[in-house]
């Protein structure tokens, strides 16, 4: 069994003068300290390069900067599923005996530093030609999924709004969140359209400075460390690589098979989940994920959200940190951090009482990639 033994975050928001590297280094230092480990214990490094510099050898550079002597190293970038996929790779490397203490890390300074690169830089020549028609920016991509979802299931604006309002409610209880002012449905409805049917408040925070790191090790090793171990009880992934070129993928993500695999590995079902951290690049993404993960039938997540079920105290408290809609755009890494902290019971006013099972989703890469973790409370 594999466990998460440490989690480290930096401040999120506008951090002038801080490079992506410095945020990655700070997150790693905080995570290793959180686990009660030291630099010399780390023998595995798993990195997602900053979007502003999608470097092929990112892990080499960061590992050298951190003075690590790694026995295993991996750098990947598959969009919003990267964070979870890296933790899965770390788990596999540890299980295979290739390393013992792995650090997974991402850090970005896109808010004040270099702009994020999309399209050609990620997909290659001739593979991102849709930009010629104005397919620029995440909202323009996701809006067509959201439009089709509204069309097929009679989803209302207010149902999207309920997601934004719920997550902001959680962010008001999270001192680290970038957006902490309460949000009303009226304010949501009055916010400007960016790519119909998505309003600005349906969209992730565009860019954030910050970093997140996660320490992964064996459950056996984690038992004696500084913090209560959080077990990686289930893992899954799935990919719709043809994205919106397949008509089925507008309203059904790969999350269904990804979550089913993770539930099966953990020996649980949706009814056992106490808290969820769902990749929330957009409000529509959350509703579709709630359905793909088996919490509602297709088309029923909107009314479920309107009834307040995504809030702490509801049937499925979701994105208790505020997520990417209100805490920070850490491309899913902050969801992992929050999931660990919920299971540890460290979340103060936004803590889900007695949370023992958390499901975390990652989703992205032009809607193609999806990955799932089931986190559970470990014993000492």
């Amino acid at each position, binding site marked *: 069994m594999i466990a998460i033994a440490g989690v480290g975050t930096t401040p999120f928001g506008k951090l002038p003068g801080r490079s992506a590297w410095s945020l990655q280094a700070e997150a790693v230092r905080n995570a290793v300290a959180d686990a009660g480990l030291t630099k010399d214990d780390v023998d595995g490094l798993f990195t997602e390069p900053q979007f502003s510099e999608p470097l092929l050898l990112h892990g080499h550079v960061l590992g050298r900067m951190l003075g690590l002597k790694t026995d295993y190293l991996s750098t990947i970038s598959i969009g919003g599923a990267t964070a979870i996929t890296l933790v899965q790779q770390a788990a596999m490397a540890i299980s295979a005996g290739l390393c013992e203490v792995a650090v997974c890390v991402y850090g970005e300074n*896109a808010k004040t530093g270099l*702009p*994020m*690169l*999309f*399209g*050609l*830089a990620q997909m290659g*020549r*001739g*593979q*991102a*030609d*849709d*930009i*010629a*028609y*104005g*397919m*620029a*920016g995440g*909202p*323009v991509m996701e*809006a*067509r*999924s*959201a*439009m*089709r979802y509204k*069309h097929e299931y009679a989803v209302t604006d207010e149902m999207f709004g309920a997601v934004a309002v719920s997550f902001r409610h959680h962010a008001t209880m999270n001192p680290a969140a970038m957006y902490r002012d309460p949000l009303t449905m009226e304010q949501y409805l009055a916010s*400007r*359209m*960016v*790519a*119909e*049917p*998505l309003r*600005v408040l349906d*969209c992730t*925070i*565009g*860019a954030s400075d910050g970093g997140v790191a996660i320490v992964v090790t064996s459950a056996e090793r984690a038992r004696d460390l500084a913090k209560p171990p959080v077990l990686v009880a289930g893992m899954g992934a799935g990919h719709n690589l*043809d994205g*919106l*070129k*397949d*008509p089925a993928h*507008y309203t059904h993500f790969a999350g269904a098979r990804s979550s089913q695999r993770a539930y099966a590995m953990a020996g649980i079902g949706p009814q056992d989940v106490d808290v969820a951290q769902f990749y929330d690049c957009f409000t529509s993404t959350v509703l579709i994920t709630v359905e793909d993960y088996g919490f509602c039938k297709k088309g029923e997540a909107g009314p479920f959200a309107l009834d307040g079920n995504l809030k702490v105290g509801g049937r499925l408290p979701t994105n208790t940190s505020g997520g990417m809609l209100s805490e920070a755009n850490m491309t899913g890494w902050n969801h992992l951090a929050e999931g660990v902290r919920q299971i540890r019971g460290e979340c103060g006013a936004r803590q889900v009482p007695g949370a023992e099972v958390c499901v975390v989703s990652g989703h992205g890469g032009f809607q193609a990639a999806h990955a799932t973790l089931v986190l559970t409370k470990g014993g000492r």
Partner: protein
Amino acid sequence: MSHTMTELVVGTTPVVIEETRGFWEGTLVGELRVQRCTACGARQLPGGPCCSSCWSRDLVWEAVSGCGTVFSFTVVRHAFHPSFADRVPYVLADIRLDEGPILTSNVTDVAVEEVRIGMPVRVWFDEPIEDAFHTPLALPKFRPE
């Protein structure tokens, strides 16, 4: 949401590569083309190095009717790339061609408020332009039937 998000992408013009050359050549002679596998008959867009159904490399570019319906769309009201600042609001749409594949493009010649899922559309070709390597191409766009 930043305006700078995509600024460093090298331009917004398609880049003609081996896999898409037949598609773009068609646009210069008024043909909308789809790649068809002569081994299994599958049709695909965008063009690829092999048939994504059967992995055959026996692929041909075939003109199609140019007719389709709006499968989904968005009215873009915020320019996420400076190139589109003078074009908002515009309609980015996924056109389900009558022959099967989905092609992402624009719906033009109609008020943005009137575009609907299921709307029948037909292709037209914009003025020819050149890609970064001076290969000519014309963007296929769609207007209501």
